[in-house]
């Protein structure tokens, strides 16, 4: 919680629109300007539905300021692709982590925490805690 660079956040969805919209929503709910870096990595490079390792790696590199990168994913191949890239060991930035969290709520919680200067553990914990918020 010092003046160091904030944790970066990457949102991985099968859909480019979903990833971009959730990023926009999180920035809006986190207070607009002055947030930690957050980027979408949605869909395939040709715009189709799917998961692109290329887009994930580019987004992770772009948001990485040295404090770690929290990756939030929607389902299926998004989960498996990030896990496989992490297992690869040399492609994602050091300190990249798959965060087990609901996609929308987790993105908001992660961005608010990262923007407040929370470290990667705090960001991951805040995003995961979003699972505990019941709606009924």
């Amino acid at each position, binding site marked *: 919680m010092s003046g160091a660079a904030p944790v970066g956040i990457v949102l991985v969805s099968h859909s480019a629109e979903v990833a971009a919209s959730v990023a926009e929503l999180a920035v809006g709910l986190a207070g607009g300007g002055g947030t930690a870096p957050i980027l979408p990595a949605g869909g*395939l490079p040709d715009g*189709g*539905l*799917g*998961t*692109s*390792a*290329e887009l994930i790696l580019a987004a992770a590199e772009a948001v990485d300021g040295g404090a770690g990168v929290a990756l939030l994913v929607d389902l*299926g*191949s998004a989960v*498996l*692709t990030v*896990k*496989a*890239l992490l*297992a*690869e060991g040399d492609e994602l930035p050091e300190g990249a982590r798959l965060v087990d969290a609901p996609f929308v709520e987790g993105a908001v919680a992660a961005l608010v925490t990262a923007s407040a200067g929370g470290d990667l553990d705090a960001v991951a914990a805040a995003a995961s805690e979003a699972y505990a918020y019941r709606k009924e």
Partner: protein
Amino acid sequence: MGMGLGMDETFDAGFFVRWLEAAASAVDREAGRLTELDSAIGDADHGANLKRGFAAVAELLAEEPPATPGAVLVSAGRQLISTVGGASGPLYGTLLRRTGKALGEDRRVGRERLAEAFAVGVAAVSQLGGAQVGDKTMLDALTPAAEALRTSFGAARTAAEEGALATVPLQARKGRASYLGERSIGHQDPGATSSALLFAELAETARAEGAA
């Protein structure tokens, strides 16, 4: 090659490149059938995804042929993770990458050594996807195939085909098909089907070199 050495025969990097090129052709040929199977219980992209991924693998191996069997498989696996775009990318990518790593730096490997390495790769797929045999996934073909490869390439091919057919009466417990519950019963799993295709091409490639 072709010296009738039987069980002592070993395979170099070129053998594995030829296998993956044959796999790319087979996936291209069967893409329609794989997508048809996937449209019944999945999201109808398995054929197109694998076609894109294996074409990229064949292209990469032609441009930069690695020197060892292990390096061929690691390189191919990485390319599948990068290019497939669906769950089969990280799953097959992990299978080939871990199998390749298990083969180490040797310039030639025998079938039994390959069977041991495949068992490592298959275990990594199970861990990545959290699936077991009987969940109606590619593991229903891969697991018996890796085991049967200890006996022969032909036995591995048969085991993979039988494993794929045995997914028909199963209820899916992993992936998108699991959302269908009992309605997934009665359809052959596309992932197990493509796995059988890969082992069929492995057996064909071995047979072309006089190995069983």
